[in-house]
């Protein structure tokens, strides 16, 4: 039995000019059926717009916002804080597509680890994920009291600094921005992206895997739960059939469309296929206020 799925659009790194176009085109795209955006992070150097800043600019525009981030560029505390901020502002409609590609310069400077010596990227990424996980739950919403009469602003006993001490990362925490558990940022990996993604699938912290076009991800034996799969649509023309097939596959939580290489970076956002899929009843709509975790559903538990 297939069900309607939310549609995300994978947005390539944008110049300021194309980011302004995105802002103008977005209302129509959301109206047509786009539930969320996955904002790619461009390579260092070229003048593209940072995806976390673009997400901040779009927080009042409607769609859920997934920000791609590379571990080689962002100290985990800084990234965790930006994502927690986005999650708080959007009511839990933010997340990160993490690319585990090595150690960032700031961590290296303070820890003394040469990034070139970090060869086990799976372990490095697993450690980074653990830091994010711990930071995102370090300042629960219920710690905020605001008791003006008693002069007690917050209950620090409910704040849980992780005091993380791994082989690469040492992060005391806690974050200084609180969050409800239900609004926690979504954490996704890309199946064909960073090294070692397959080995991380059993990590409890991972919520979703962005798959290759027309494929699904094999969960390792012994895994207790599968991350949700975000099915990346192929560049083919039978998209409605492909969405129908993806919806019928257990564990598929969303479909993702991207502009074909060499075309207008916003082509996927403005494609008439979106409205056609909506009119065919294939897209999940009307979810502009609910947290991503609720939109995408719980992780599928694997039978023992």
């Amino acid at each position, binding site marked *: 039995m297939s069900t309607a799925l939310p549609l995300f659009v994978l947005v390539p790194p944008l110049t*300021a000019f194309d*980011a302004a176009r995105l*802002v103008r085109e977005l209302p129509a795209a959301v109206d047509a059926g786009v539930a969320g955006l996955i904002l790619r992070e461009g390579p*260092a150097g070229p*003048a*593209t*717009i*940072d995806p*976390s*800043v*673009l*997400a*901040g*600019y*779009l*927080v*009042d*525009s409607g769609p859920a916002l997934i920000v791609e981030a590379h571990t080689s*560029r*962002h*100290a985990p*505390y*800084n990234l965790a*804080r*930006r994502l927690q*901020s*986005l999650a*708080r*502002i959007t009511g839990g409609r933010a997340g990160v597509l993490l690319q585990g590609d090595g150690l*960032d*310069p*700031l*961590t*290296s*400077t*303070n*820890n003394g680890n040469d990034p070139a010596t970090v060869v086990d990227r799976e372990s490095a990424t697993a450690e980074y994920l653990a830091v994010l996980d711990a930071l995102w739950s370090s*300042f629960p919403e219920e710690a*905020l009291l*605001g*008791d*003006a009469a008693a*002069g*007690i*602003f*917050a*209950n*620090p006993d409910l*704040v849980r*600094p992780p005091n993380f001490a791994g082989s690469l*990362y*040492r*992060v*005391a*925490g*806690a*974050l*200084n*921005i*609180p969050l409800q558990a239900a609004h926690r940022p979504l954490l996704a990996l890309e199946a064909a992206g960073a090294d070692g993604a397959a080995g991380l699938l059993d990590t409890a912290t991972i919520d979703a895997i962005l798959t290759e076009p027309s494929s699904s991800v094999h969960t390792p034996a012994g895994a207790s739960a599968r991350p949700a799969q975000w099915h990346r649509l192929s560049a083919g023309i039978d998209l409605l059939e492909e969405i129908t097939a993806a919806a019928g596959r257990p564990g598929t939580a969303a479909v993702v469309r991207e502009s074909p290489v060499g075309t207008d970076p916003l082509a996927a956002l403005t494609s008439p296929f979106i409205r056609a899929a909506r009119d065919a009843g294939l897209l999940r709509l009307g979810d502009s206020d609910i947290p991503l975790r609720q939109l995408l559903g719980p992780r599928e538990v694997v039978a023992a």
Partner: protein
Amino acid sequence: MTGQLHLNVNILNAGVFGGSWRHPENPPLSSYSSEHYVGIARAAERAKLDAVFLADGPALDPDLRYRSGNSFEPTVNLAQIAAATQDIGLIGTLSSSYNDPEEIAGRLASLDELSGGRLGWNVVTTAGAVAARNFGRDTEPEHDSRYERAAHVVSRVVSAWDARGTSPQGRPVVVQAGGSTAGSQLAGRLGEVIFSAAQTLEEGLAFRRSIRDIAASFGRDRASVVILPGVSTVIASTEKEAAQRRAELSELVPWPYATKRLSAQLGFDVSDYDPDDRVPQDRLPDPDAAGGAQTFYRLVLGYIRRENPTFRGLINHLGGGAGHRISVGTPEQVADDLAAWFHAGAADGFNVMPDVLPSGFTEFAEQVVPILQQRGLFRREYAGSTLRSHLGLPVSFLPLTDAAVATSW
């Protein structure tokens, strides 16, 4: 001084005083919603202010039990504000100690471009072990080494901006606020807007003269530096009501918070003393020998040496804040105060820190700004739409360093 002055509003979460969050004019938790910041920014834009300013540090305030703290990450917060406004400048604080220069150059440039050229970066070096421990360190780096890194990081970021060449305002504005010896050197060398903290007109005059002298020593045009002292505002319809409001704000500061903060500022536990004892000046180190945040220690020390206060008097004077000057009075009196500093040459404008937010800023925007406008001291309309336009600061020479940012520290 002729011309018009500049005004920022420092959206310092619930307000500048330690008990601001308790004031009945505003919900206690309002500063933990992003609407708080967007609303104040829109009000600032209606009042034609140069910019909104977000102070920040990458750490949880250890005093959170007793007062509100910084929360939203500044570039995310300012990006949301940018989308909700058109002209107001956007100045955010990011640490040079705890950010990578390549990464923040791109992130800040992105915000500048999306906003149409309205971004300023307030460079801080971030004192304290609490922040240091979020980035793999056990202790804070030594004071002067933080400023050495800051010069390298700022130089690298500005070079990256110039190479990118996409800023609608030519280049984002560099803002700096350190009042220590090393901080003043950094400000004079690379700061275009300098947030300062001066309690007296003489301190303000001396600081402005000093920074401009330092700038000139680096080959910069003295006029290419804008000095904005911080000023906290307590405004009411009558002088008596303003004084009452000030007293109420002192009463609202949770006493355990105030004494703990003062202990950290002075370097010894003030609870060892009776609140009505005079502050023992022989226990106070010379500022350059003090670690941590030297700017405010200098201010507090200056006040102590002038006034010989009791601990209670000192805490009431500070209001649980860091030591910025507090202007208490009617809208006319506050306007007179700002005008006097401006005309005396002690300030090019002010970084306004309202007593409580947002209501205290509403008073300032709707009561004080019109007086300054009527006197010809402040703009009635924006002439341009970039932060540089508002500040009257074209892109100018900055003596960057070629030294590489250290890969270990």
